[in-house]
């Protein structure tokens, strides 16, 4: 494939899951096993195609858009169908095809009540197209549609296959994030009209920036900020997340943490910063402060949780805080670190939610005190895997979690675009507090491991036959474990791909 001309490949990859969802819909619901296998085949083909795209991607020009498509779409409002991919999009896009494949494999054996694989997998495929489109859309209306498209399938995934409070959680998820999107949409409209260029094209708008008055920049960035900050989620807009995660089925949580949250940080980087540089600069210290509050606060909340899955959900608040700290640094290293943290968090926390789901299937509870320790004796392979991923999540160097965190703190010590001159002291304080957050992160993970992994099994579990890691789990999890290690040992894998694109992007900001 020639990355300059093969725009079709991206289009095919993007809509393949959607077509697959349609195909599943045509299958009779009674063909339970076949439907699950078909979903694996569909996601596998899509993943293979995206891997082929990644292989033929021209890494020498990763700063430029490749596999582009630009067609007229809704002429009445000048909206165009613009797709493309650069070094920033590629890792996230690839992850968006890896995780659903693993989820489909996992679903061949595990599907929560009320079953119905056809609807479940169909919704997952629909969700996949929405998420994937977000990372390759380069026209604002198209971006918005993909961004919003994810809400509906996730709403149903939580609402139908979720835990006891699924209705509350799903509606809260939907309305809260949609609430933010409204502001974002208004901001998009304001951008369109203020620029006066009659284009929604993200790159063209980035090149034109900055435009509009200071008031415009502030208000428009505020709108974009609300939309994305709720998605990330940043403190104090995070309260939908623990509920959504706690109630969501395993697959829902994996995709929510693995990809969906990244759409928020990606939006900041792709749209907020380059198109509204002045607004972004004005908000950067605020973002930094909220990010660090999120780190400390999320970690403290984790210490108080009694439910393993809710704990992992709160850990996302802290980890995404590091990503946002990188963005608040407003320099190349910060964006690099933020994007790396994105990927690392997707892989690690996605894996943690897989593990939490399997924990529930074995113990039929996620209460730490009820499990009560001894997993290393009872189900040693599972426990070792849990420990490995938990240690990765607490940011051990050599594993994926480290680079995003360390990079963000390094970048924030000398924020770009003149922020260092005015806010140098603030940012130093932010770095120190963020480092304190890593200590709290270590604390809650070690404490968690002490309470469920170590020691001897409680009496109630002593005679219970609990299954260690199953074959299907090995298949679904091994790629993630390998990635956790590979990204940690060879960070160039992501940093190298992104670098030119990040440099380009920051060029728009003049920094």
């Amino acid at each position: 494939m020639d990355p300059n001309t093969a725009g079709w490949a991206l289009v095919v990859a993007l809509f393949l899951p959607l077509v697959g969802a349609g195909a599943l819909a045509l299958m009779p619901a009674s063909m339970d096993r076949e439907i699950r296998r078909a979903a694996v085949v569909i996601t596998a083909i899509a993943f293979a195609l995206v891997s082929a795209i990644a292989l033929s991607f021209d890494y020498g020009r990763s700063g430029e858009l490749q596999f582009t498509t630009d067609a007229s779409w809704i002429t009445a409002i000048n909206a165009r169908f613009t797709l493309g991919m650069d070094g920033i999009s590629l890792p996230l896009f690839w992850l968006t095809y890896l995780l659903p494949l693993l989820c489909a494999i996992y679903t061949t054996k595990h599907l929560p009540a009320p079953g119905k694989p056809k609807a479940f997998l169909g919704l997952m495929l629909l969700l996949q197209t929405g998420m994937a489109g977000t990372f390759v859309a380069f026209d604002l209306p198209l971006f918005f549609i993909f961004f919003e498209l994810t809400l509906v399938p996730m709403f149903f995934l939580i609402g139908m296959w979720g835990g006891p409070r699924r209705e509350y959680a799903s509606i809260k998820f939907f309305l809260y994030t949609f609430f933010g999107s409204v502001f974002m949409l208004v901001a998009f409209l304001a951008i369109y009209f203020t620029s006066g260029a009659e284009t929604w094209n993200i790159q063209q708008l980035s090149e034109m920036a900055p435009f509009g008055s200071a008031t415009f920049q502030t208000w428009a960035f505020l709108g974009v900020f609300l939309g994305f900050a709720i998605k990330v989620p940043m403190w104090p807009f995070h309260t939908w997340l623990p509920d959504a995660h706690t109630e969501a089925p395993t697959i829902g949580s994996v995709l929510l943490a693995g990809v969906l949250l990244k759409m928020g940080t990606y939006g900041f980087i792709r749209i907020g910063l380059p198109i509204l540089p002045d607004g972004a600069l004005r908000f950067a210290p605020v973002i930094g402060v909220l990010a660090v509050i999120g780190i400390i606060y999320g970690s403290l909340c984790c210490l108080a949780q009694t439910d393993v899955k809710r704990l992992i959900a709160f850990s996302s608040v802290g980890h995404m805080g590091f990503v946002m700290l990188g963005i608040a640094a407003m320099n190349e290293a910060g964006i690099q670190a933020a994007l790396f943290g994105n990927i690392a968090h997707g892989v690690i926390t996605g894996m943690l939610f897989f593990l939490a789901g399997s924990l529930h299937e074995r113990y039929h509870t996620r209460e730490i005190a009820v499990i009560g320790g001894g997993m290393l004796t009872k189900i040693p392979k599972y426990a070792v895997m849990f420990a490995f991923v938990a240690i990765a999540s607490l940011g051990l160097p050599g594993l994926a979690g480290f680079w995003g965190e360390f990079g963000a703190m390094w970048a924030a010590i000398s924020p770009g675009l003149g922020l260092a001159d005015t806010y140098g002291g603030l940012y130093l304080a932010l770095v120190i507090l963020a480092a304190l957050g890593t200590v709290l992160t270590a604390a809650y993970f070690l404490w968690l491991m002490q309470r469920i992994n170590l020691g001897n099994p409680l009496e109630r579990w002593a005679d219970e036959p609990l299954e260690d890691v199953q074959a299907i789990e090995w298949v679904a999890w091994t790629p993630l474990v390998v990635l956790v290690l590979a990204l940690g040992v060879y960070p160039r894998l992501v940093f190298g791909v992104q670098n030119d694109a990040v440099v380009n992007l920051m060029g728009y900001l003049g920094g």
Partner: protein
Amino acid sequence: MEALLDYAWLVVVLPLASAVAITAFGKNLPWKGSELGIASLAISWVLSVLIAYQTFIMSPMEEPVEFSYEWAPMGSEFVFELGMLVDGLTAVMLLLVTTVSLMVHIYSREYMHGEKRFTYFFAMLSLFTFSMLLLVIANNLVQAVVGWELVGVCSYLLIGFYWEEKSNQDAANKAFLTTKFADIGLIVGVVVLSAGMFGLDTSTPFNIREINAAATAGELSTTTVVLGMLMIFLGCMAKSGQMPLHVWLPDAMAGPTPVSALIHAATMVTAGVFVLARLFPVLAQSLVVMNVIAVVGVITLFFGGLLALVQDDIKKVLAYSTVSQLGYMVAAIGVGGYTASVFHLFTHGFFKALLFLGAGSLIHAVHSNNMSDMGGMAKAMPYTFVTFIIGTLALAGFPLTAGFFSKDEILIAGEIWAGAGFATGHLVYWVGIAAAFVTTFYMARACFLIFAGESRSHHPPHESGKQMVGPLVVLAVLSIASGYIFSPVWTAEQNFETWTETEFITEETVYPFAADADDAAEDQGEAVGTPGGIQGDGVLAAGSEPSVLAAAEDGELTVLHGAPTWHFDLLALLLVVFFAAVGVAWKFYGKGPPDRDPTMQMGRVTTVLVNKYGFDEFGYRFIVVPVRDTMSRAASYSSNVLIDGAVSGVGRMTKNAAFATYRVLDQKVIDGGVNGAAFSAAWWSERLKRTQSGNVQRYAAALVAGTIVLVVAFAAAT
């Protein structure tokens, strides 16, 4: 031979390969994986010996061997490196780490025999050795941080090796979290130093040589140096057991004894001292930093040693003695004893590993850590006895043992520093001598309790096997021999000082705050342009006491002190101290354990020591409990109730507004019509009310109301 240095990375990679291989198929091998660890370490050790030989004959090295590879690009200006830096300091560390690790690997085959996690243990030993080597060979601070954190996690896993016991789990957590807390300092310090490098036309702001070069050239601002190095020192304090962050180290004795010997005596705990030595050219720019380091070191070397007096557990005695000896090393750095500190680090690694392995041999024999269960072991365990005594003499600094040469070197460094007019020099010298008395006393007490008198063991003691005794003998030889590498038997051109010289620490290197003090005073803290000077404000002037100026007038105060010479006055003084301490110990413990141990009869002093100065209690009551139980719950409550309550409140208010709109405006004003803004609000409210309960309506209504508010706001703004 010189080409050999290019392959120094093999020393690091071999233990990693062994860790991976042991994990993969160690269980299926005849020796359960231990043969892989021993083989790889043996090769690494041979390489290290050759590397050390090569670096030493080339010394002083003008150009160290450096090699690096771009680990990751970070934007258009900077990269992270993965690389190696081989100079005298690296060579010394490689030699120490591989020697002790090899001995511990061999020893553990017998000591850990029959353990159900035998293979795992060896995999961890190899992984730890790799991590430590990765740290000491690092050419940049990011890699150093990576190695630093990795040794920490290996330490955590090995302290908690017997993880069925809650106390071991707690000890592991305490060790990891205490050091992790201090790592705030390490990480902030490292990024502060690197930020100081921005704008200096480098793409590798973490490169250790470049940072050292920039510091000695006066290109780093005072803020960078002082903040960066004090922060890094905070990290070193926990890792290298400096008070009050030493609290994890005695608890870490919960791990198997070979682990204590390797990680918590000889290597990992010296990582902090190593990093200080590595960055010595930076910290030497600021008297403030050096004073802080010296004072913390002095406090630790004395008060840490006192804690050993009231212990019954032999491993705890040795742990506190490690704390105290690390205090000597750190204090030496603070008084300009770069060579002395590294030298003591080196010799201490051997004799402390020896003592721990000896203790392990004793524990193996009597199945107890407590000296009250030992007694009369000299007859039953002659090899352990003799080697333990040699280790004790070295630790006590008895003349002509390794500890004598290295500890004296530290005291001499203090004397020289004092001679230049710095008060901390006197502190190190006199407190160092006082602590030598304490050291000798508690070690003599331990030896009498263990070896003299009748056996109190419930198990008839027996000598350990060859695989345990062998390493003891080797380490005993090294506990004497390693001292002679920096004894006056060497020439002025070839001695430990020239071997550990780096390109920035040479005979000519001077302390900027001493040598350039005149200029600095004249400029009133303005940037000093001369090499070795220091830029910035305030700090320097504050540190420049008149005495410093006087000293500077006499001549430049150089970093290196010149070739070693005999100091018979100090030798005599220390001999008196030694025999006094042994004499006192003999009086109390020489004829078997006293009914009432005098160290437990010191009234309030004993109480304070038994309570470990209250640091543990303080940390638990005022840090652990508030964070874990109070703050965490407050945060969780605020999230679930306050913040989420506000979200719900907005929804509820909007819902009420929507209903009011529906009833008043829609039903009454528009009179039956269902159009306009109220249409959607009321319609949604009604629909959602029927299908769902609770919060649904709130959010739906919030959405609508929010949109309205926003449209109005934007209309007003434009």
